[in-house]
């Protein structure tokens, strides 16, 4: 096990900055999720730890050693790829023991470790098969077995669940978490799926356009987003963002005054972007006027999508027993004053971060 450190790391491809001045510390034994949309640089950052890409600037450290110039095979990291990257011509046993053969581990020791890894991942009966004879979920477990059999310092996982169907993804997600907690191996996990990130990571690092936006524990990230991007990226649906004006200790939205509480009272007057999670909104009387444009019933809950007079879209989350409005209904939306977020209208940065 080891910590991984990015210190001012950048990666430039021709004219494109894939990773821009990334400084991040992954703790020993931690599962850190790199989260962000496509093209945000998360996979490039992961590949720089693996040694598959060289940093254009900065240093990558694994344990106590700077590894910028260390060959991938000498970094003692194991990677699980999105496509599984199994050797199609080898049996599962040969696939799993491939890294051990390269390390010249003796045959009996090799067999013992392969059997143990296969047993851990429920592959014991399949060792003589080839990858082509397995389902997607089984292939994914072989890729994991090949990673854990080496007992590496660091696991690197690049969207390993993307090719699985929804049910299998949930099951494998839980398997990976429990495996990582049991082995205690430092793990960097890349995904664009915020549910995956929220459920798996000790901490989540959110990236956008190559830059790190925020690093925090999942719940902290959800409750205290550092900027509009993080606020809207996390949560399903994301945080509602409504233009508002701060004046006289109140936030005014479409003529409706909302009391500022706690640290929010220190926000200077002027235009802001008000953020509120869908679960902190409700349909009632005396709130902000809106019309219902869509009603999505998800079983346990219902999302009522409303449009304010100025065109802003607001999602209201209701439990399934609540009275559902119809499309086109005129409604008023109330916001929970204890759970409001305020962002700078131009920079998007959080204004009440010390709340």
């Amino acid at each position, binding site marked *: 096990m080891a910590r991984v450190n990015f210190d001012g790391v950048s990666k430039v491809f021709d004219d494109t900055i894939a990773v821009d001045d990334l400084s991040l510390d992954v703790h020993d034994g931690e599962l850190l999720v790199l989260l962000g949309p496509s093209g945000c640089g998360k996979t490039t950052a992961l590949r720089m730890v693996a*040694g598959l890409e060289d940093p254009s600037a900065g240093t990558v450290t694994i344990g106590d050693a700077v590894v910028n110039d260390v060959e991938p*095979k000498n970094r003692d990291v194991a*990677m699980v790829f*999105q*496509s599984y*990257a199994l*050797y199609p011509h080898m049996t599962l046993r040969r696939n799993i023991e*491939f890294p051990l053969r*390269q*390390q010249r581990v003796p045959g009996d020791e090799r067999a013992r470790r392969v059997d143990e890894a296969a047993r851990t991942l429920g592959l014991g009966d399949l060792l003589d098969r080839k990858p082509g004879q397995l389902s997607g979920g089984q292939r994914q477990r072989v890729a994991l077995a090949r990673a854990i059999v080496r007992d590496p310092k660091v696991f690197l996982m690049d969207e390993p669940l993307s090719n699985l169907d929804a049910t299998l993804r949930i099951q494998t997600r839980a398997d990976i978490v429990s495996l990582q907690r049991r082995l205690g191996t430092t793990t960097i996990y890349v995904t664009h799926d915020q549910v995956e990130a929220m459920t798996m990571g000790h901490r989540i690092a959110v990236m956008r356009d190559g830059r790190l936006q925020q690093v925090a524990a999942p719940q902290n990230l959800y409750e205290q987003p550092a900027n509009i991007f993080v606020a809207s990226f996390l949560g399903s649906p994301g945080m509602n963002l409504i233009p508002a004006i701060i004046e006289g200790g109140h936030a005014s939205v479409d003529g409706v005054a909302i009391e500022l509480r706690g640290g929010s009272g220190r926000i200077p007057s002027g235009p802001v972007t008000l953020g509120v999670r869908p679960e902190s909104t409700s349909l009632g009387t005396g709130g902000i006027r809106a019309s219902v444009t869509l009603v999505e019933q998800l079983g346990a809950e219902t999302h009522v999508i409303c449009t304010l007079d100025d065109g802003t879209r607001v999602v209201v989350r209701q439990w399934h027993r609540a009275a559902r409005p119809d499309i086109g209904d005129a409604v008023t939306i109330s916001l929970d004053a204890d759970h409001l977020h305020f962002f700078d209208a131009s920079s998007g940065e959080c204004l009440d971060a010390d709340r």
Partner: protein
Amino acid sequence: MSAGVSRRHKEWGLAYLLLLPALVIFGVFTFFPFLKNFKLALYQNPPFPGLPAHYVGLHQVGTVLSSTEFHQSLVSTLFFVAMVVPVGLLGGLLLALAAHRAIRGMSVFRTIFSSTVVSSVAVAAVVFGTLMDPVVGLLPWLGINPHPAILQNPTWALPAVSLIAVWQFLGLSFIIMTAGLQSLPEEILEAARLDGAGTWTMFWRVTVPLLSPTLFFGLVVGTIYAFQSFGQIDILIGPQNSQFTHTNVLLYYVYQALSIQNDPGVAAVLSIVLFTIMLVFTVLQLRFLERRVTYAGN
């Protein structure tokens, strides 16, 4: 029900209509001559042109197959194929590996390496013939000057024309191998790097098995190419010397029998034998070697 049958008839009719031009062309230029060959093989031609051929059944086949000329031609053909295919494939693979790097200017080398495929046999033969010329060639200049000269030498003439065929096949082999290398799944190669595979292990344990469909395709194409080589021998050796220099490979023997000896019957027997050998080689390759091929996603 009847509407469905009628629609199916219309679809079949349209299908045959669209196939008709191809069927006519293949019928006239491929299938008819192919079948006519079997008839020709059953008739013996008299040694003087103009006299009618007479039916001899399979007797002519037996005569040809037991002749010394045929045995010599078969040995020469197998030697030629055994030279051209492995060397051409290996050479193409090595060049493709060398050119498979993201280095500035590599496209120039790719163009050079693949250029032999578009150069004509005649040009290649003349260039190599000049290089091997006993007076003005490159080899005498290097101190290699056997007597008789290489292209008239019973020991060296066949390797020399094989070399030209290898050179010409290199371009095609290079293109096939380059396409194969470019389609290799990058993530598997990266996984092998992370798993600790060195250059040698990477090549033999990962790249070659992943490239097996390409190698197999190259083998089949190369074998057919080698069996059908003709121009190099005709231009550099000629019908007078081919027998003496052991360069009368089967296809050239067919040409000799038909155009020089004016014997369509013998030529037909030889071409059927050549066809059968190529068919057997291809089927054997498909049956036994394809088992070792791993296709992507398999």
